[in-house]
């Protein structure tokens, strides 16, 4: 794997891979960053995985560029040999209804398909989370089928309800909190994606999200259970080198 290091300041460096949106490459970035944090590599204070880069903050009293670069080299070497085909999929219920997705008809028209077919297309793909950011719990995910990859609105909406699910070109995602935004809204999840008093995220970069269409009745039922702390998202593990 081709990569280089860049020293950002006295206590941060960036591992730079070829600039591209590529699931395999990003999986390597995710694996190395999770290992750096979970194995508590000496001196590492924080890491930020992005599409093709990995930013590492460190304490210069405890480590050095040289030492850290050597450790990252070995992590990259060992991760490169690992099985990357395992997928952790988080299944997110979404109600695709005109009330929650004001752009549903427009996107269907853009794709020259029925609303029903649009829902099939959107739920038929597992979306890889390349990175987290922008808003708490916001996942940068891709890629939606080209047919429904409608560009964002020319004039963004002033306010979008939490849980709204949208499309912006090849990207799709959920608004975890109320926010302005220009994504084409096609539905809404009843799940509370961000709770400031208990900000534990339900997915992280490197996971996949699979949308599951639900009815309005189910939406309200799940919402009630979710708020009562009585609803667990389904997670599915697929792939890997087992034959089951």
């Amino acid at each position, binding site marked *: 794997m081709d990569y280089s290091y860049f*020293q*950002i*300041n006295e206590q941060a460096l960036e591992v730079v891979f070829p600039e591209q949106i590529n699931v395999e490459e990003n999986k390597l970035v995710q694996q190395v960053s999770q290992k750096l944090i979970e194995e508590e590599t000496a001196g590492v204070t*924080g890491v930020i995985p*992005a599409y093709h880069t990995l930013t590492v*903050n460190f304490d210069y009293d405890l480590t050095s560029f040289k030492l850290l670069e050597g450790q990252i080299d070995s992590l990259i070497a060992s991760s490169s040999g690992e099985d990357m085909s395992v997928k952790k999929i988080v299944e997110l219920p979404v109600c695709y209804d005109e009330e929650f997705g004001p752009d549903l008809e427009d996107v269907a028209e853009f794709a020259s398909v029925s609303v029903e077919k649009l829902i099939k297309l959107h739920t038929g793909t597992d979306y890889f989370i390349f990175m987290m950011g922008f*808003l708490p719990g916001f996942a940068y995910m891709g890629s939606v089928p080209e047919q429904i990859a409608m560009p964002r609105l020319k004039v963004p909406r002033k306010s979008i309800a939490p849980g709204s699910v949208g499309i912006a070109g090849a990207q799709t995602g959920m608004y975890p909190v109320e926010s302005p935004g220009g994504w084409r809204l096609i539905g809404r999840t009843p799940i509370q994606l961000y709770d400031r*008093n208990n*900000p534990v995220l339900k997915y992280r970069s490197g996971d996949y999200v699979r949308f599951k269409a639900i009815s309005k009745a189910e939406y309200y039922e799940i919402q009630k259970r979710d708020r009562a702390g009585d609803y667990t998202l389904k997670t599915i593990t697929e792939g890997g080198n087992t034959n089951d």
Partner: protein
Amino acid sequence: MTNIVKVIKPGLSTTIQDLGRARHQIEGFPESGAMDKFEYQLANLLVNNHKNDASLEFVMTGPTLKFECDSFIALTGGQMHAKLNGQRILKNRAIQVDAGSVLECGPMETGNYGYIAFSNGGVVTQPILDSRSTTLRTQMGGIQGRALIAGDNLPIRDSVIMQSLQSRKINWDVETSNFIRFVKGPHWQMFSDEAQKQFTQQSYHVSEQMDRMGYRLNGNPLPVPSKSLLSEGTVFGNIQITRDGSPIILLADRQTTGGYPVIGTVIKADWSKLVQMKINKDFHFIEVDMETAMNALVAHQKILNDNYEKWYQGRYVEPIGPLRRNSIKIERLIKNNL
């Protein structure tokens, strides 16, 4: 024992801050934490706190607080006319505060950010994701994720003793400068020779668009590279050049990733100068190499370390922090006998 400091007046935008939640940037949460880490650490050091204990950070105008318990405090940051029970007090020293006292910070004349540290562990609100820092944008940490309001109760631990109280002071003022040093950023090479030259030769000033997320600078717009970038991780002090050619310096509450080209990164030894830079004051950027940056950082940190050593060594020098309750009793006895 946990006790209370009551907020009488909140000041302009006063928040609870520690060193932030760097480890949770992997999940997309902003790092947050004190804007001026030097002044923040100095305040903690003065009252013998751990370096990550939570303090109050205020902007331009500080709060008015009423203490319901005994404490020792230290004020750091810009020059201010702070008063304790109506008496002028000085910043950059440990100050004994008795239960019932009222502290008025008032406006700051120099700098932008000030700190109040409380002895015996600082403000002990509930940590969220390993930190007590307030992130206003995500409404996280501190008190309900917001700036303080009148009537808030700040939990602190009372304390009656402070080692080497008399020597816990430092002659210091927020650093001011007409230059800010930086190391080349990951996208330096994307800028034309002309843009690189202009960036280091022209003067800039901090615009009114300045907050905990970042400072937007005013200056003649730079020619910007036409190529667009994929978002990358951000660090404190990244100098992004936006599409209109003006720089934004990313600070404590910055988003974890950004897509504008980063021309340079402010060196850590100059973070405090930058954060305390007054609006409309002209300055320019100077490029340095990593070795210079590292040496400057070690020298800057030495100011804190030397004082730590001095106060630590001084802990057995008389008077060893007088036991306040007893001393009050003795004082009363003497007064009554006179």
